[in-house]
């Protein structure tokens, strides 16, 4: 048995993520136990050795993320999985992976913070940490699954994006999606698109510039690659005071993401060209939105929905489109207005942005609560 066989499975979200990693070509996993992400480590500890890969439990999340970076420079695909407290510890390494252009996948199964918070309960409070968690100018790619099927699909997508753009990619899952069990359909492996990093030609030397996304060698291939988290030129040589070297590097690694938003950012939309009320949602909360929208429509209300499959880079286009017809946009989320402000920034000139927030105890925002907000908004 190698990667999972095509067929229908009844899987937990974390299990789907682990199996997807193998399909995507991941051959190194390092992690540290943490609820609600532990099952990913457990599953990969069993499965990776079966496909010739390595899974290792490290002494902490700093070491987990660090060894993933090392593994990636051997030319292999690598991943770690954690939750809020561990994700906080990994922020420095995420910045390192970003500036060294090291492809890797970091899964953050969100729970309730800050700090230890409510460790076993669902939250969506890491949205802004994902975007701004590391220091310095940084552009994140973060994906948000809302089903077990999508845990599978977006984990593969996360690897593909990280390989294509040579950058760390975050799978921003949540406790509900990671722990629930659902039917998953796996297509034949040959039908699944897999992206691999661009390798250098034998005489190439510029692994950190010239091209927008430069080719990436592995150690031991004779390229004598110099990797550093300090500002460096296109050959990897430190330039710790040269203003131009810093601008050139940091602007390029941000631009390679910001200029390709349309290609990276995926949204699922419903009725956004003809609605009075709009909704922007992501992750587990979006499942309640589906039902609320259905209820509203049976009562004759026109509701548009943008579901963010990609949280970062933010899909401004879809929000702008929604705000052309929607006079009010509701943003339900299990945090205190993290995505709300982003939507407000984009659409406040053409629509009123209405927050709908709930935190604590893992209580979900219910379809009834969303429907109530829709009807309330439709009255005025």
């Amino acid at each position, binding site marked *: 048995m190698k990667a999972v066989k095509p067929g229908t499975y009844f899987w937990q979200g974390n299990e789907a993520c682990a199996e997807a990693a193998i399909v995507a070509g991941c051959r*190194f996993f390092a992690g540290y136990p943490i609820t609600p992400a532990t099952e990913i480590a457990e599953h990969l500890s069993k499965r990776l050795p079966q496909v010739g890969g390595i899974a290792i439990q490290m002494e902490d999340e700093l*070491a987990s993320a660090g*060894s993933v970076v090392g593994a990636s420079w051997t030319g292999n695909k690598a991943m770690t999985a954690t939750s809020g407290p561990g994700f906080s510890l990994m922020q420095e390494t995420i910045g*390192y992976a970003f500036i060294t252009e090291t492809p890797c996948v970091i899964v953050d199964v969100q729970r309730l913070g800050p700090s230890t918070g409510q460790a076993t309960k669902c939250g969506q409070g890491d949205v802004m940490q994902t975007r701004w968690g590391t220091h310095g100018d940084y552009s994140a790619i973060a994906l948000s699954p809302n089903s077990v099927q999508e845990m599978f699909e977006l984990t593969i997508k996360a690897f593909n994006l990280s390989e294509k753009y040579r950058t760390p990619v975050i799978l921003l899952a949540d406790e509900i999606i990671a722990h629930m069990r659902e039917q998953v359909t796996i297509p034949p492996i040959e039908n699944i698109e897999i992206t691999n990093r661009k390798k250098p030609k034998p005489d190439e030397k510029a692994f950190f510039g010239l091209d927008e996304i430069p080719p990436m060698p592995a*150690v031991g291939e*004779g390229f004598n*690659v110099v990797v550093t*988290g300090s500002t460096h030129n296109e050959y990897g040589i*430190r330039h710790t005071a040269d203003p131009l070297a810093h601008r050139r590097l940091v602007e390029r690694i941000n631009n390679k993401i910001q200029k390709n938003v349309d290609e990276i950012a995926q949204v699922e939309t419903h009725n956004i060209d003809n609605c009075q009320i709009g909704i922007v949602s992501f992750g587990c909360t979006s499942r309640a939105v589906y039902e609320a929208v259905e209820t509203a429509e049976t009562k004759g209300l026109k509701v548009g929905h943008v579901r963010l499959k990609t949280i970062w880079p933010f899909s401004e286009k879809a929000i702008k489109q929604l705000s052309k017809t929607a006079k009010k946009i509701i943003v339900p989320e299990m945090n205190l207005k993290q995505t709300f402000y982003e939507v407000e920034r984009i659409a406040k000139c053409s629509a009123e942005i209405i927050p709908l927030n709930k935190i604590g105890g893992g209580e979900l925002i219910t379809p009834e609560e969303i429907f109530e907000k829709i009807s309330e908004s439709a009255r005025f």
Partner: protein
Amino acid sequence: MSGKFSIRKYLRDVPLPFCAGCGSLTVMNQFLRAVYELGNEDLSKFVYCSGIGCSAWIPSPHFIADSIHTLHGRSIPVATGIKLLRPNLNVVVFGGDGDIVGIGLSHFIHAARRNLDILVIMVNNMVYGMTGGQVAPTTPLKSKTTTTPYGSFEYPLDATKLAVTAGAVYVARWTTANSNELKESMKKALEIQGFRFIEVVSQCPTAFGRRVGFKNAGEMLEWFKKNSIPIEQAERMSEDDLAGKTVIGEFVLKQRPTLVQTIHKTIEEAQKEVEKD
């Protein structure tokens, strides 16, 4: 080996960053001599990992080799990922005392416990040199540094003893005043498998020496010579007699299964089990 040793053939044409009299130059020189005397015409069989601090700059970007200059304290985790997936490459970590047994201490202990197949060379200058001379976990008691202006009130850590306890298969300590022993020790360490640790007590005349009464690097080397006790002699001395002394020599040389061996055996077994299903 053809021709005479020339350090230049292993180094990029990039100016070296070290202060005059810095011990890192001795470590760099002796390491490359060791590599040369073992018959390596180039560094293609190696990967170098280092963290943040002056001695992290020994390999990066100077060695014409694959080198990864990581975050402060995280060179050993990065080396872990590399060694497990590229077991044929010789992975060498360079770091200072702050990097290896300050901020990165946990990784150091766990890598020794796992018997990860890497060589860690720790340049112990007893201070945070790059930031201008702050107290380190290795600073001798009562030493004046910029953050202990009245003298350090903490006892220093013995990284070498810690490596022995944690399970390293080769552990040695030298000072920059024993450069030949250091080179021979590096040669030995490069030829064996498992977690190997060499501590080099080194001078930082700029950020440490001048604050504790040494006029230059030469005076610090004299101090090292007077203050070091070979391990064979130290074994016959009392703890009181050894207080404040640097014990030098080889502390451990043993064999036990390495992480690369045990993890790859696990993979083989897992694959056999799956084939049976």
